[in-house]
């Protein structure tokens, strides 16, 4: 088997896997919701475009930020695996055509993405009079060129050493920002020329330096791992993926908060407390749901809706944090420690009770706008719900598993 076949096999597996996940992501409900959302957004956008005056500064600034962040988004799919850094090491030359194909695929896919972006933003740049009837193709050329510069420099980064890589990244992003700014604020023609020149220079550079550089395996592995993890994290909102739960961050500044949550002398509680804070899959989720729920309640005046949403969010938070018990189950040390098995459930209950009560309090505070009485009512229902969730539901559910 040749290396080419290895990657062919991998990409088959990758797309099969991705297809399986996407089937779950784009379930009927989500598609309907997405259609409605897209429709509503499109409607608002077209309304907005009509009101924009040609000299307006703010839409240009927003557009610059949106373009820059979208054009630098996404990385090349290489399907390089961590073990390749050992096993495929001798295949320095043989990797070249494989990676070239990955580059071509990325250029094609992201090029298509950039032209889609150009199409979507075209009405706006028309109203801003950046583009006129005859020059709209320049808009496409500029965005696609910039995206290709981004893709090509990502590819180059697979080859150079770390010091050069930082320079390359700064340089690339600087030129991209400059082109966008020139194109939006001064002249589209100048911006396009700048972008196209940058693309030519970037391709020329890579052709010149190609033969004398070796692959930076660590960088390739790291970048592919990051890409896969980001993808899985996204899909994980809909269906369980093998998304690394082991992404741990030290978050030293949180140490104070962590110790604030410490109660008593249970090693179980001590441990999952830190798991919650430092595994961002747990704390990030909690924070996200807390934020979305609070923002909703800040702006919703109807108390019944608030009660409903508050309970829903508390349930979602609680439900998503239940796997903390599983973390304890899977840790071999808790089989070796001289401690009782029931402490695991108690520790999980304790942490969840505190987290949910905190969230319930924040929700009640956020709905203060609806009136102090309503907020008080929400606080009481939240408290009752947390009590029921922790004392009744969790006990039954965790004992079963």
């Amino acid at each position, binding site marked *: 088997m040749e290396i080419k076949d290895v990657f062919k096999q991998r990409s088959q597996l990758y797309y099969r896997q991705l297809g399986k996940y996407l089937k779950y992501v784009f379930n009927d409900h989500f598609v309907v919701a997405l259609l409605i959302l897209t429709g509503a957004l499109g409607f608002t956008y077209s309304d907005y475009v009509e009101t924009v005056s040609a000299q307006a500064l703010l839409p240009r600034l927003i557009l610059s930020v949106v373009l820059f962040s979208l054009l630098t988004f996404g990385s090349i799919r290489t399907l390089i695996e961590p073990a390749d850094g050992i096993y495929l090491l001798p295949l320095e030359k043989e990797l070249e055509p494989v990676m070239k194909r990955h580059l071509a695929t990325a250029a094609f896919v992201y090029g298509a993405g950039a032209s889609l972006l150009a199409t979507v933003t075209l009405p706006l740049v028309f109203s801003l009079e950046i583009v006129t009837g005859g020059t709209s193709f320049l808009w496409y050329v500029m965005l696609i060129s910039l995206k290709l510069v981004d893709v090509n420099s990502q590819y180059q980064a697979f080859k150079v050493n770390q010091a050069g890589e930082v320079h390359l990244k700064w340089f690339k992003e600087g030129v991209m920002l400059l082109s966008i700014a020139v194109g939006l604020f001064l002249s589209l023609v100048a911006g396009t020329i700048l972008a196209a020149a940058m693309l030519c220079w970037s391709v020329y550079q890579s052709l010149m330096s190609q033969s004398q550089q070796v692959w930076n395996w660590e960088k390739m592995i790291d970048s592919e791992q990051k890409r896969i993890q980001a993808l899985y994290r996204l899909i994980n909102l809909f269906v369980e993926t093998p998304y690394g739960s082991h992404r741990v961050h030290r978050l030293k500044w949180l140490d104070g908060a962590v110790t604030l949550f410490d109660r008593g002398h249970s090693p179980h509680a*001590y441990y999952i407390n830190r*798991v919650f804070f430092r595994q961002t899959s747990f704390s990030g989720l909690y924070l996200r749901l807390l934020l979305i729920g609070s923002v909703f309640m800040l702006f919703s005046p109807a108390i019944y809706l608030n009660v409903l949403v508050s309970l829903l969010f508390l349930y979602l938070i609680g439900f998503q944090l239940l796997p903390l018990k599983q973390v304890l189950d899977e840790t071999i040390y808790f089989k*070796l420690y001289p401690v009782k098995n029931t402490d695991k459930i108690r520790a999980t209950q304790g942490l969840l009770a505190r987290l949910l009560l905190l969230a319930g309090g924040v929700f009640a505070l956020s709905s203060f706008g609806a009136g102090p009485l309503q907020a008080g009512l929400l606080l009481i229902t939240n408290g009752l719900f947390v009590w029921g969730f922790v004392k009744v539901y969790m006990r039954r559910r965790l004992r079963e598993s």
Partner: protein
Amino acid sequence: MSLLVDSITGGYSQIPVLKNVSFDIKDGELIGLIGLNGAGKSTTIKHVIGLMHAFEGKIEIDGQTIAKDPQTYRRKIGFIPETPLLYDELTLKEHIEMTIMAYNLDRVGAWDYADTLLKKFRLTDRLDWFPNDFSKGMKQKVMIVCAFIIRPSLFIIDEPFLGLDPLAIRDLIEMMEEEKARGASILMSTHVLANAERICDRFLVMHAGEVFAQGTLNELRGFFNMPGGSLDDMYSQLAAKEGF
């Protein structure tokens, strides 16, 4: 008598790996558990620490079995696994805190001892780091610190020397000697025969899930019929038996 393993048969799901294994370790004794890969050393260890349960036979530490009182039984063991096993989410300091909590140690005394060991292993300035990002040898040192502060009556140490620098090996051997003097028993599995020969009081040679031979170095020499032979020579004979 500290550890008593009495004719245990056990393994993974009804297929016995260990066959009728018996041995004991007295207070203050260091036993070297040796044998080729796959001889059953790790399985024996898993049975002793209670991660696996024997189909037959019994294991006692100071007269306690795991079935009768798991908490007391477990408190008696300090275990250093072959591959360092650390919490992804905890710092070095928190690993020590966890150990203190789990084994209900006296905080002040335990930290006192821990500080001495950390200093010896040059880990003091890493207290706020995640040990999971350490090198293999440094991880091993963390495991050693956490096991020693328990001051258990039985140490179970699986391949302690791998990855340690010579300085740390010397320190570890010294620490083991101190613990022995305190009356602790040690079961140490290792392939580093030169070290084993130097420090072990007795040896347990395992082969194909059975105790092939046990005794002091002199007794083993008699058993293998190799007067003046080293453990290395006996290993070679064992390997020859396997057909290598």
